[in-house]
């Protein structure tokens, strides 16, 4: 019931804050990685290079699907912005269903930009079914597709170190975020502006995906404070010997 209550509370807060943010857009804190993301997107469009967007290997049937959905929301906005580029972005995935969704998202972005005829199915790819096979396939994309910026948003593991190293070799910009701790450790050591923790889920808000994304961030903050409060209270109760 606690979970159900938390779910209901999150739903109410999400709905209310979404309507509020539609009227008053939020002022988000500066995240260097997303600033560089926007610049990289613009540069890629201007100089005719590609964007490589890696959505990881998140499976929608597992809890890692959330990061995959966050990556798809970002992909939607980037696809719309880069539709005018001479070289469309390439999206690699480590999961088949994620690869299919990435293709559909690309097409939706092109459609929204009025350039649906420029969509190519090959831009949304299944790089591999295993993490390292996925990394291997993504490595080939980074080295061979004239990539100017690598954007890794999703469920990535330690194998992302290979992608980071390849990005460093090609002297491309890297914006990476994962829900996996080992990947976050790798990103922290290898990238300039690492995204840690739930900053992955803020990608939609920073690329202008909508008011609901901004509201989600606020709800996360509210719930986090509630959890902190609950943990402190519970710890105190446990210390005092309350039967919890």
């Amino acid at each position: 019931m606690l979970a159900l209550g938390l779910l209901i509370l999150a739903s109410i807060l999400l709905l209310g804050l979404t309507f509020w943010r539609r009227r008053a857009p939020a002022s988000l804190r500066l995240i260097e990685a997303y600033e560089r993301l926007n610049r990289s997107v613009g540069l890629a469009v201007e100089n005719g290079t590609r964007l490589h967007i890696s959505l990881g290997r998140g499976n929608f049937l597992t809890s890692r699907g959330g990061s995959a959905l966050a990556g798809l929301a970002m992909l939607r906005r980037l696809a719309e912005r880069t539709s005018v580029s001479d070289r469309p972005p390439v999206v690699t995935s480590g999961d088949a269903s994620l690869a299919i969704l990435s293709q559909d998202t690309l097409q939706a972005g092109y459609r929204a930009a009025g350039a649906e005829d420029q969509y190519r199915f090959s831009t949304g790819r299944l790089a591999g079914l295993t993490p390292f096979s996925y990394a291997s396939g993504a490595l080939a994309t980074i080295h061979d597709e004239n990539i100017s910026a690598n954007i890794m948003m999703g469920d990535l593991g330690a194998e992302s170190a290979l992608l980071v190293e390849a990005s460093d070799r090609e002297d491309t910009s890297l914006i990476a975020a994962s829900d996996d701790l080992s990947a976050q450790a790798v990103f922290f050591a290898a990238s300039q502006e690492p995204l840690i923790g739930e900053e992955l889920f803020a990608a939609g808000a920073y690329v202008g995906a909508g008011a609901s994304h901004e509201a989600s961030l606020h709800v996360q903050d509210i719930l986090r404070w509630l959890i902190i409060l609950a943990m402190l209270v519970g710890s105190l109760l446990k210390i005092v010997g309350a039967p919890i």
Partner: protein
Amino acid sequence: MAEIRCPNCGRNNPDLLDVCQFCQTPLKPESVLRIGEKPIKKNTGELESVLPDWLKDVRQQAKDAAEEQEAAQAAAGSRSQKNEPPDLLAGLASQAGSGEDEDVPDWLANINPTAKAKPATPPASADTGSDFFAQFNEKESGPEPGSQPPQEDAPSWMDSSRDQSPAPEQKDELSEWFTQASGRADEIVESDNEQSDVGWRSSFDSPAAPAQNLPAEEEDLSWLHNLEAASKQTGDLQSPQKETGWTAEFETPATPSPSPSSQDDLSWLDRLGGMDEPSQSAAEQSSAAQDDPGWLNQFGGTPDVPKASQPSVPQEDLSWLNNLGAGSEPQPVDAAPNQPISAQPFAADADLDWLNNLGGTPDASQMAKLPSGPEEIKPSEEDLSWLNNLGKPAEPLTPAASPEDLSWLNDLGGEPEPLSTPPFAQSEDEKVSPRHTAPLSQKAAEESEPDWLKSAAQAPSMPAPGDLSMDWFSGKADREKTPPSTPQKNPFESDIFSTPEEPAPLSNQDVDSLFSVEMPDWLSRPEPGTAESVSQPTGSSSAEGDESLAPVDLPSWVQAMRPVEAVITETTPSVSDQPAETEGPLAGLHGVIPIAPAGSAKRPKPVSLMLQASDEQQASAKLLEQILGSETSPRALITSSVVTSQQWLRWVLTGLLLLVLSAGILLRSQNMPVSASLPNTVGGVSNAVLSIPANAKILVVVDYEPSLAGEMEAVGGPLLDQIVMLSQPNLSFVSTSPNGAALAERLMANTKINQIAPIYLNLGYLPGGSAAVLGFIESPGQILPSAGVGSFSEYSALVVLTDHAESGRAWVEQLQNRKIADPVLINQPLLMVASAQAGPLLQPYVASGQITGMINGLADAARYEFVNNSRPGIARSYWDTFGIGLMTSVALIIVGGLWSLFTGVRARANAEQG
């Protein structure tokens, strides 16, 4: 295109034509004076039609006052002929009845009808040695049938003039002149100013010509006789020393020398309107200016210097009147209207004194005298100096003092004036007397002026149509200023559009006298500053002769037309430097209206062409320029070396690690000790294995990737080996990854467990992730029928081999949830075999008791294997190599990190300095 009015038919013709296109009359008669030619008399009767309204009004007034002058005329008839002023308007009277001239004023036509009867005397004979007023005296002696009525209409001052001069003769001449002028006026239909000016002047210049066309009607010119008489009294006609008026120019060309001793004092009238006088007369201008009748010079000024009329002067003075209205002679129409009319000495200054007072500020005595009646007028002392004041410039053009005061007429419309001389500037010394036709004698001039003269003395509001110089707008202060002694040009001979080089400023008095309407103060009152500036150059000349025309200040718009260099001031005058306004609503204010004249070369401030850009903008512009320049310039290819430093480092690291690790493996070193104490978490695993019953079903979940198969086999091997060794269970392998089935097989093979437990069940791939896990836990037979179990509780233990915490957490969480529903599952151990990267994340579950025991990484596996009698031995074999590898890595990290730190700091320092 300038037009020339035909003197015969009066129609306008282009100036390019030599003959009239209507009547074939030469438009440019031979008598037009050119350079070197001698002036000839002109018929002033042509100017009848171009007479300004004020003059017409004067005539009308004269007509009205003619009756009053009859008695005075009769009284003045006893005077000597010498003293009688010449019939100035005799020529006009002769032309009064000629033609269809509608503009012939009645007063002019009625003044001297006897003048028409007089044949056109040769201009030469009329001019040479003939006194202007003498003609009038001669005429007066003769019958003048037509002169009686006009005489009645003549103003009183004219009666005085008649008394002074030989009335009959002069009267006849005057009447004749008037007649001629009237007759000529019929021919002159054009009201064009230029033509009218030309005609008017030409009529004056050639008195003999109009004599032929003198109207038969004889006009009463008694008023003019009175005028003559008055002028004689004043001596204007007698003393031709300062004749600078326009009358001096009216002498016939036969007597071009404007000698003061010339007895043809009426020559100025001959030249009145004669614009064709060549510039050669400029040399004679100095003297010609002296010949101008003083009365015209003093037009508008005070007759300060009444001149006694000389006995011979009256005769000579009236000669011009003979020429007035003479249209037979071709009138000289000057194509160069700026040519001044050579002024001839007008000896009869005294006789023209009355003219001097015409329009000027009348003296109190004069004003009192004028209306008193004609008896006060002394024709012998007529002062015609007022006529000299007509068109009097602001300063005398020539320094020579001339008895003739009619030079102002020459200045009308075009005499170069100093640019600094404002139109209204009047010298302080100038005393512009109101223009009024003062008695020809000085005495008469002092008498009261007739009404029409008073009105003429008033400040005119508008200049005459023929006034080409804005000198007419000289202020009223000119009234008190002495008329300039220099000869004045005929104002009518200059074009209205003439260059400002020849402005003929008139004093205000002259202006006032010319105009019958009162001029506004602002127009008549000269500016103080300009008045002073004008007064300076004109002061000398004004001091020279009393009959010199008062300098006239140019109006501002005329000054603006002056040469630029004369008025350009580079520096903008400050407010304090600018004079204060003296009149109007801006009186007393400084600098309200900029004094910079129109058309001045006052340049605006130079605007810098430099683009005002800030430093940031300039920097951006430079950057853009560099970018644009780099676009066209070939960019040197950055050739990187085949092997970079970073690649070298990678190779070195790889080689080093390979070397070390290979050595350890190949050497099968087992020198590094393994601790025998098991961690708590590992101890729980041992205890759980001991509690598994024999032949139990154990579910083994293989959720690791092939990449970590080696580690997992090393870590999971000892546990599975112990379980198999102790319980000989029935193992069931399941995997939530597609590779799990194969990996399970590999595990069994590599750990050689299959040799111990050859029978095991490989359930394969369990799709669906956590949901599948939950479903399998709830009903394994339904999810995987090949599992062979009805419920999950049939498994005695659950062993999960995972390399990522997500999978382990999923099994833990789903099992924990199921344990709540099924209490049987509470005692079912959950053993976790995790890789080193997943172990820390599963520790909380271990600590919470959800995981019974966990073997985390190779370290725990090695210890557990040691306890298990070193079976299978994979972990122990890896232990030494593992240690060496770690030590190498640590060393590399420490050394490399420090080196990177040093190089990084140095690079940043260089970057900051660069």
